[in-house]
Structures are given as structure tokens and as C-alpha cells.
């Protein structure tokens, strides 16, 4: 992304031009997440409408177990905390510790994906069995795609946060910050999804 000469005047108010710079990108990222959240909102609205007007057909099977998704919720919530820790470590210029926390976060994300797979394989219904089965897989699958992308992002950030040689430092921390915001967003969506799909 290009720094615009005209923004230099603005940046006088701020301490460094880097700060000014990342400001736009964070703003852009958050706008994008609003858009992404609207996709989920559309899916949730569809699911809730189905629930109120389209009863499950008599011979259809649609049953969910709670233990595994509860574990998944815990995995993601803990991973949000560990990511936050990674950010704090980077701020303190401790890249070793930052990398360690990032690796734990990515591990938790991947554990979530594996656990989700296990759930998929043990469920008594498939994608096309009935409306609720389809909606279940579409929603969790779309969320799983987000977790997959997020985990890849975390691994990239982890690699770039190495010291020496990495491009992410406590001065240039935007990639970590962006991945962190994205990750919190994906976790937040999961909590809503968990409540709507499993608890309601």
C-alpha cells in the first residue's frame, strides 16, 4: 500500500508515519470484517427462519451432541487469550516469547479443526440428508474455512516474527495486530454460532 504524500501533513500530529499508516489498514480491515460478519448474519437469519417455519421432516435425523463443541468453544476462547499474550510479548520486544504464544495459538486453532473433523465423522447425518443437516454443515464449514485461513495467517506471522530475520517487530506489528483482530472476530462468530446452532 502506498503512502500518500498528502498524508504526511496529517502524520505530523502523530508520533510516527508508521502509526498513521497502519491506522488506515486497521480501519480497512475492520470494515472488511463488518462485511464478513454480514455474510454470517445472512446465514444465521436463514437458519433461524428455517427453524421457525420449516419443521424437520418426520423421517429425518438431526441430532447434535454437546461435549465436543463445548470443547471447541473452550479451545477457541483460550486461543484468543494466547494470541493476546503474543501481542503483548511483541510489544515488550520479546520475540522468542511472542513466537511461543503464536505457536500455541496456531496449535489450538488446528486442534479446533481436528476436533471439528471428528465431530463431522461421528455425526449421524450427512450434508444432503435434510435441510438442517445442510445448514449445519454450511455454517460450521464456512466458519471452519475462516479458522483454517486464520491458522495459516498465524503460522505466517509466527515465521515472520522470528528474530533476527523476521519482518514483524514491535515497530512493524501491523500483520500481527491484523491477524489478532481477525482471530478474535472468528472466535466471536463461533460463540454466536455455538449458541444458535447447539444451544437454541
Amino acid at each position, binding site marked *: *500500500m*502506498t*503512502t*500518500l*504524500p*498528502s*498524508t504526511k*501533513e*496529517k502524520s505530523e500530529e502523530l508520533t510516527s*508515519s*508508521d502509526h498513521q*499508516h*497502519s*491506522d*488506515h*489498514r486497521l*480501519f*480497512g480491515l475492520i*470494515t*472488511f470484517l*463488518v*462485511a*464478513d*460478519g*454480514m*455474510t*454470517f*448474519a*445472512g*446465514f444465521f*437469519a*436463514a437458519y433461524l*427462519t*428455517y427453524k421457525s*417455519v*420449516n419443521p*424437520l*421432516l418426520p423421517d*429425518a435425523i438431526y441430532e447434535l451432541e454437546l461435549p465436543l463443541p463445548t470443547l471447541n468453544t473452550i479451545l477457541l476462547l483460550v486461543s484468543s487469550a494466547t494470541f493476546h499474550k503474543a501481542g503483548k510479548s511483541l510489544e515488550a520486544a520479546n520475540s522468542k516469547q511472542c513466537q511461543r504464544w503464536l505457536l500455541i495459538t496456531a496449535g489450538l486453532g488446528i486442534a479446533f479443526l481436528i476436533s471439528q473433523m471428528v465431530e463431522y465423522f461421528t455425526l449421524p447425518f450427512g*450434508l*444432503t440428508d*435434510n*435441510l438442517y443437516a*445442510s*445448514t449445519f454443515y*454450511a455454517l460450521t464449514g*464456512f466458519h471452519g474455512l475462516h479458522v483454517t485461513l486464520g491458522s495459516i*495467517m498465524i503460522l*505466517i506471522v509466527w515465521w*515472520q516474527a522470528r528474530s533476527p530475520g523476521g*519482518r*514483524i517487530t514491535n515497530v*512493524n506489528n*501491523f*500483520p500481527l495486530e*491484523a*491477524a489478532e483482530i481477525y482471530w478474535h472476530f472468528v472466535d466471536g462468530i463461533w460463540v454466536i454460532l455455538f449458541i444458535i446452532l447447539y444451544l437454541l
Partner: protein
Amino acid sequence: MSISLPPANENTSNSLQPTGWLRFISFSLDHKVIGLQYLVCGFLFYLIGGVLAGAIRIELLSPISDFLARDVYNQVLTLHGTIMIFLWIVPVVNGAFGNYLIPFYVGARDMAFPRLNAVAFWMIPPAGLMLITSYFINGAAQSGWTAYPPLSITTPAAGQIVWIVSVLLLGGSSIFGGINFIATILKLRRPGLKLMQLPMYCWAMLGTSILVVLSTPVLAGTLILLSFDIVAHTGFFNPALGGNVIVYQHLFWFYSHPAVYIMVLPAFGLVSEILPVHCRKPLFGYTTMVYSIMGIVVLGLVVWAHHMFTSGTPPWMRLFFTIATSFIAVPTGIKFFNWVATLWGGRISLNSAILFSCGFIVNFVLGGITGVALAQVPFDIHVHDTYFVVAHFHYIVYGGSVFVIFSSIYHWYPKFTGKMLDEKLGIIHFALTFIGFNLCFAPQHWLGLNGMPRRVAEYDPQFTLVNQISSVGALLMAISTLPFLWNILYSFIKGEKAGNNPWQALTPEWLTTSPPPVENWPGEAPLVTKPYGYGANHSNENNPPITQA
């Protein structure tokens, strides 16, 4: 996620960009190049969509299906709608003029995210080409631009899937553009420039981009579910498998009603820029214009079910959506009266730009009135899915948005190229377009009221004469394109030199050379706090309208 480069590198990356005409077919990061890429690309698709419209009108010359086979008619109809909406009007009123003008208006050197901007543009040509080639390979989609299931599930799958993929690409492009506009308008404003001093087009683009960011993702999600229904045989929208078609309609219109505002709000903004310049008066009611735009944005998000009054919508929903839709007439009416008041008593130079803008005002008020009529449930049920709806819609998107696109081309061509367009040809173009458009679409109100259904290749013989009149109008519209094409090509080569500011306009894009240099202004960006300060020397104010910072 991109890693930021130190500023020094970025300047060199800018100079690595190709120069000359090659810029226009390159991955250029210059907002002006991207804007013109959007404009030219959109216009080429407009010509294709126009040929398809011609095929439809030829078919409808006679009540039987003789010129096009029935399934071909359906494909042509679907392609016409999709191309005109997603490849012509949306990219041009937003992408083309937005990219060209918004950085000038906020006093910036470029958009907030130039690379994202180029990516957003380059998603469009492949999507468009894919859509058009699907016609020659396995047949294009046949279910209209709405792609309602179960029709879209039962018609041939190949064309429908290509349609979905290309609309997803175009939607993605639109979302990236929207993010860029919001960031540019809110974050890149030059110091000293307040929000309420921005030219009206900035407000229109801010409102439009909010709609894009909130509603387009819902369409994307819906189309992904629809593609599952087609490819994987899930039953989201398939009643035979326990699904619900109404859910599709709700999700679809949650995007596609705001889409009408995505097409017409930027046009409102452009007209608000053009009128004051050519009638030498300040824009009337700036503040009310801003609030009207934001009012339309909010209301535009909660009126979608007025497209579904005949879809078994419960009475409370009909009531709510009728009232909400009728309310939209208030902010829209305010804007209409503001434009008329801007013209009132002005020194109007009757050139092509203002003629097209005035044509817009006339057509748009007609389309607006039928819109209020359609919001009323009893009337809507009577004319639902008839040519009345076709007429209403074209009065908004052609009589509204396309007229404004032409007006804007006449207004900004001197800035784009440094050459003036020929006024005589422009006036011929306007006369042919205005007469042709009204001849083509006004009779369709009558057709609809008398019950001629839309989207069908065959019709009751009693409608033959009126359909033929409508087709003559379409022919005039087709002919009207010729003087325009000749004008833009000839003037580009041999046109009169325009100078930097042929209209003596006050908005910032005119305070630089024509065409502008790469970073917009040779020196610092000017601080324009009164973009509509025309006739200021007649008032008591001693402040000059332009303050150079």
C-alpha cells in the same frame, strides 16, 4: 495481508508503473487510470448489453417466438439484466467516477488502498467475459438476474453456476471498492477539510459504500448456498427437499433492493456536482441533501420485502414494508426539490451535460412516482411481474443512472482527456436518447396495467402494436449511441483543446491540469471549503471561494 514497505520503496514502485496508453491495460495503481479503466470497460459491456436488449425488442415485435427460441430468449434476458446491472451501472457510477473524483474531492493523492483498488477492477473483466462466454459454451443462465429458485435449480446447471461464480467475483470487487471508498472519504481527508465541506458526491459514495459493505456479503452467502443446491443437491431453497424458496427471496432482496440505491445514489451525487457548475448557483440545501442520503441509506436497508408482496408475505410484513417504502419518497423528494431549486433562477448554459442531468430529473421523478405506487400492496398485486415493473425499473436505472452517466461523461470528458466534446453531436445524442427512452418505456406502463407479463418471449396479440412502438423507441436509443461514439472518438483526436477548467468550476479536480498529473496536483492539494461557492462575488461575502493552502 501485506507487509508494509518503507515509504522510499513505494515511490520507486510508483515510477515502475507503465506510462502512456499502456497504463490503461496494466495493473496501474493510479486512481485516475483505474477510474477510466472502469469507465471504458463498463461502456464496452454496455454496448453488449445493449445488443442483447435489441435482440429482446426484435423478438417482441411479434407475439410469437420467432426471432429467438424460447430458451435463447431466457438466456438473452438474463445476460442483459446481469450485464447492465453488475458490469455497467454499478461499476461505472461507483468505480469509474468514484475512483476518478473521490481522491480529488478529499484532497488526496490516491485512494486509501491503491493495490486493493487495482485488484477490485481486475476482477471485473474476467467475470464479465466468463459470463458472456457461457452463452457460447453450454448456454447461459436462464433464470433472470434474480436467479429465483426453484427456477434456477431446475434450469441447466452449467450456465447457472457460471452466473453465480461471476456474480460472486463482481460482488467481491464491489465490496473491495466499498471498503476503499469508506476509508478514503473518512481517513484520507486533507487537514482542514471538514466533512460538511465535502462535495456532495463524497456523501453519496459514503452512503453507497455503507450499503455495499452491509448488503453485498449477504448476496454472496446466498449465492453460495444456491450453488450447493445446484451442485451438491442440498435443499436450502428446494421445497422438494424440505427447503424454503422464500428464504432465498428475503436474502436476495436484502442485497438487491439496496442495489438499486447502489446504482442511483452515486448518480444523485454526480447530478449535484454537475447542476451548480452549469447554472452558476450554489447547490441548494446542502445539509438536507446530506441527511437525505443518509436517510435513504438507513431506509434502503429495511424495505426489501416490498419485492415480495405476492410471495405469501404475512400482513404485518406487508404493512411494515409498505410504510417504510413510502417513507423513502420523503428524502428522495427533498433531493428532487433541491435540484429544481438549484436550477431556479440560475444562469443555465444549455449544454449536453445539463440536458442529460435535467433529463434525469424528469425521468427519475416519473420512475419515483411509479415506485411509490408499487409500494402499495393492492396496486402491487395487480401489476406484479408485469411490464409495469419493467417500465418503473428502467425509468430508475436508465432514465436515472444511465442519463447521469452520460451527463457526467459530457461534464468530465474535458478533464479526462484535455479535449472538449462536440456540443452539436451531444445535443443530438440527448434528443435521440430522451425521445427514444420515453418512447420505449412509457408504453410499457400501459402494457403492464393491462396484464402483459414480463420475461416471456410470447404474448397476447392484443399487445402487438404497443410492443412495436416500444421497439421503435429502442431503435432510437440504439441509434443515439452512434453520435456519442463518434463524438468521444473524434473529439479525442481532433477535439478543441479544453484548458484546465473549461466550465470555471470550483471543485478540486478542476484546479489542476487536464488531464491531471500522476499525483493529482503539481504542488500541495488545494483546500476547497466552498465547492459550490458560485456567484459569491455578488454576495456580501469577501472571502474568495477557493483558498489555496
